């Protein structure tokens, strides 16, 4: 990454339900201010929202870091939750272990991981059962 890099850091606090989506909303505002194209912003916002919500509903919260460079946006969401035992299965559209209580709130469509894959240009997931999950998503910023 060359040139100036803007770094943002967020705590994803799973105790405060009203803050779910706050990190991605703040990031989106920053990307808007920087004049990045709406399409790129949309990709980054969707991917980050899904990762943030997963840390929220599946892993008791975590942390998010965003690096905005001239050519790419790198979003890292990390948690110390239960981890994902079968990642291939979790990646399938519609697969969800979200309990009914969470589904009633509108989550648990099993589209989070597929959305992250679709809307980021690169998706890397490191996960270990009992230790946690780190999701790194890269969205390339093209000029014009």
């Amino acid at each position: 990454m060359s040139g100036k890099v803007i770094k943002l850091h967020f705590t994803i606090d799973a105790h405060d339900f009203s803050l779910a989506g706050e990190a991605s909303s703040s990031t989106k505002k920053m990307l808007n201010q920087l004049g990045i194209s709406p399409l790129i912003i949309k990709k980054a916002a969707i991917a980050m929202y899904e990762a943030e919500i997963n840390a929220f509903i599946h892993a008791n919260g975590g942390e998010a870091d965003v690096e905005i460079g001239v050519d790419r946006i790198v979003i890292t969401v990390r948690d110390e939750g239960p981890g994902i035992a079968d990642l291939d299965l979790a990646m399938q559209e519609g697969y969800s272990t979200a309990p009914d209580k969470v589904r009633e709130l509108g989550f648990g469509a099993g589209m989070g991981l597929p959305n992250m894959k679709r809307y980021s240009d690169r998706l890397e997931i490191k996960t270990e059962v009992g230790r946690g999950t780190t999701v790194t998503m890269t969205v390339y910023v093209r000029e014009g």
Partner: protein
Amino acid sequence: MKVKEFAEKLELKRLTGESGLDKEITGVYACDLLSWVMSHAVKGNIWITVITNINIVAVAVLTEVSCIIVPEGLKVENVTIKKAQQQGIAILSSSMDTYGICCRAYTLLGK
């Protein structure tokens, strides 16, 4: 058409007062799965949903929908309304069901 005019024509209750009424409407999107809405709603769409918890506000901000309409006279929690007002989002309530709202929207906005 602006949210304000649409709300007047459909006699929608403005749960968030004057918040967000000035936005331009581009169409309608109806869905209750937040992930689905995140990736399919288009900027300026009216979003119709029966989900009333505070998370709909973040989704509305991220997707830049023009407003949220809750059908069938559903109650919306106060925290949701407060947050929407902070973010300049209009939440409107209708006694009609989703289909009814869509039919009215069609006559006003076309396809």
